[in-house]
């Protein structure tokens, strides 16, 4: 008798607790995000998440810091594969295409639909340059959140010392300046550019585009142009900087090393993302400035950065929660705050109309430069198996930087071969097949 009563008592308690928690519980969703600079920026993102959570009680966002862009992709996909698709992920802007191709993410229209928001109207507030990477086959799959372009940071004190009046605007001027700034015996390098994975590919694309080329086929994600003249010219240029002109170290240089060298005065010029702008502004203890990436044939740079995507397999409630968070995070004031804090430019045009933003730009002209370079920016490489295809040329670039005997033609040919092989499964299903 007593035991039965105990059991029914416990059962009642359990049921009522369950009911209570379902009623009281906010919709809990996971938000995975990378950060360009660990520490400060990941902290700031967590602050934003907390702000969102306390501002309303329908949605509870759990912020998961997932390291680099590549790591974030790995983690989010692993999670989805294991049956726990994350509702919101801040994904490298060019991965959205591949994820959409493999049917892993949800079209944004589905999310926006829960709040009756028209995606076309929504996207019209964003810069045209950031839109192509957000679409696949005409459907919107991601909302840009933070964007960057590669930019040239330079040490004004060193420039004055070497008698260089203005920042280089062409490749020729660039090499000249770098030669003047380089000191013997590696005491100071004229220029340093990160050649580790991800950064490497981005910069190769930037140089190829400055050299007049396109790098990949934006209309068909199964084609890449590593073997073409413009790409080869870019590969040769970067290689020569290290091997011929000797204005930068040979071997692979990690982005951490690039920034640390800049701060310690071991290098006069660096190419880094505009996403590191506020980091540089805070830590450079000398006069510095930024300039457009020098052109060869034309001024052109790929955009970089990250956009918000949502993985397939979430419940309608999670989708609604995801959109609530996404629209909050990309509101002009929040996205503007993030831009000022990080140095990324805000992909949402309307953010620049706000008074805080106008004030900030007036006080910090270097932040304006990133936005100004936007008129020359184009989409980021996005193909089938983007990471593998990207690494195909990155490995060769790293080889060129380390091995003086390797010829550019040979390296480009190998990169092309490896990339084509990786894209083969996709080609077999599309361009190489007879589609009904």
């Amino acid at each position, binding site marked *: 008798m007593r035991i039965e009563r105990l059991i029914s008592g416990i059962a009642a308690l359990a049921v009522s607790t369950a009911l209570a928690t379902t009623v009281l519980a906010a919709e809990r969703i996971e938000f995975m995000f990378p950060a360009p600079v660990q*520490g400060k920026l990941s902290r700031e993102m967590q602050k934003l998440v907390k702000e969102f959570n306390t501002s309303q009680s329908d949605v509870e966002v759990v912020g998961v810091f997932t390291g680099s862009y590549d790591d974030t992709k790995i983690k989010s996909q692993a999670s989805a594969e294991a049956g726990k698709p994350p509702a919101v992920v801040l994904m490298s802007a060019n991965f959205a295409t591949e994820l959409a191709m493999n049917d892993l993410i949800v079209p944004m229209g589905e999310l926006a639909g829960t709040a009756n928001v028209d995606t076309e109207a929504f996207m019209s507030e964003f810069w045209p340059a950031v839109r192509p990477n957000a679409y696949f086959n005409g459907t919107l799959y991601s909302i840009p959140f933070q964007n960057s372009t590669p930019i040239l940071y330079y040490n004004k004190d060193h420039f004055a010392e070497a008698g260089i009046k203005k920042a280089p605007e062409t490749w020729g001027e660039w090499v000249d300046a770098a030669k003047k700034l380089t000191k013997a015996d590696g005491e100071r390098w004229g220029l340093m550019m990160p050649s580790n994975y991800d950064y490497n590919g981005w910069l190769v694309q930037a140089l190829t585009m400055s050299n007049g080329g396109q790098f990949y086929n934006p209309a068909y994600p199964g084609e890449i142009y590593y073997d073409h003249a413009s790409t080869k010219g870019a590969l040769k240029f970067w290689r020569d900087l290290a091997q011929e002109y000797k204005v930068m170290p040979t071997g692979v240089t990690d982005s951490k090393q690039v920034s640390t060298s800049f701060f310690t005065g071991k290098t006069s010029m660096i190419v880094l993302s505009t996403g590191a702008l506020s980091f540089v502004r805070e830590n450079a203890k000398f006069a510095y400035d930024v300039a457009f990436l020098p052109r060869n044939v034309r001024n052109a740079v790929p955009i970089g950065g990250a956009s918000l995507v949502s993985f397939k397999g979430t419940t309608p409630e999670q989708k609604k929660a995801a959109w609530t968070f996404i629209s909050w995070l990309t509101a002009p004031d929040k996205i503007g705050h993030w831009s000022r804090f990080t140095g990324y430019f805000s992909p949402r045009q309307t953010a620049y109309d706000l008074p805080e933003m106008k004030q900030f730009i007036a006080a910090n002209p270097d932040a304006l430069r990133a936005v100004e370079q936007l008129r020359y920016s184009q989409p980021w490489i996005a193909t089938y198996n983007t990471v593998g295809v990207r690494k195909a040329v990155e490995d060769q670039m790293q080889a060129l930087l380390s091995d003086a005997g390797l010829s550019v033609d040979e390296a480009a040919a190998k990169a092309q071969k490896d990339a084509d092989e990786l894209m083969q499964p996709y080609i077999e299903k599309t361009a190489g097949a007879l589609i009904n």
Partner: protein
Amino acid sequence: MRSDPLGRHMRHALYCVAVGLFCGIVLVWSSPFLWMLVASFRPDSFGAAGMASLWPDFTPTLEHFGYALEDGDFPLWYLNTLILVSGTLVVQLITVTMAGYTFARLTFRGKDLLFAIFLFQLMLAPPVLIVPNLTTLVKLGLYDSLIGVMAPYWGSAFGIFLMRQVFRTIPRDFEEAAIIDGCAWWQVLIHVLIPLAKPGLLAFSVVSVVFHWNEFLWPLMVINDPSKQVLTVGLVSFALGAEGASDWGLIAAGTLLVTAPLFIAFVLFQRQFVNSFMFSGVK
């Protein structure tokens, strides 16, 4: 007569050189940790030319530790790591004791075959099996759980061999005395054998705890939920940002926080540590 090709002075000089060389090796060996200590307290961790200097010529600051504790969720990671190593160890102790006892004391059909099956597992190191093990975990619904991280290690072939060895070397007299007194097998096991096997059990425990405290790849693959993250994975996500500039003082401080517990435990229980590692491998 002993041959003495080198003169006394020569030998003495050589000895001094050897000692000097040895001291050099010791210094080089410990330099990474010395740097870690110095860098985590050094203010202004870059831009300053002396970032790599081992000499503490500055006023120490605790700001890096403050940021580290703010950025990373160290208390949570400590807790999860503790849960992980103790959960793994407890089950291991039970399974290896039972299995070790069985192979040491009992006779049964198929003993050699079963033993070979366990032996074989020693060669199939769990780290190499991450891909299929992950699939198994997903099917069992253990993905993204600490239990999922522990499970593959619960049948430790290494532990079974160790315990078998340990039980074998215990003289039978004690057991026989207990049996004459009327004890059943499990009483013999619990009251006689296990106490005598304490050194071996301790050795195994130390090896297991250190191994699982320091494990990285497997927890990285299994766990996504930040509330279940362990120290090693936490440290990496903390030390490597995306577009990569780095605050070395912060990284040094974070690394110190991760390694400190085992260091402290080592300093306090040095003899047990060393003995157990030595015990764990030989013969």
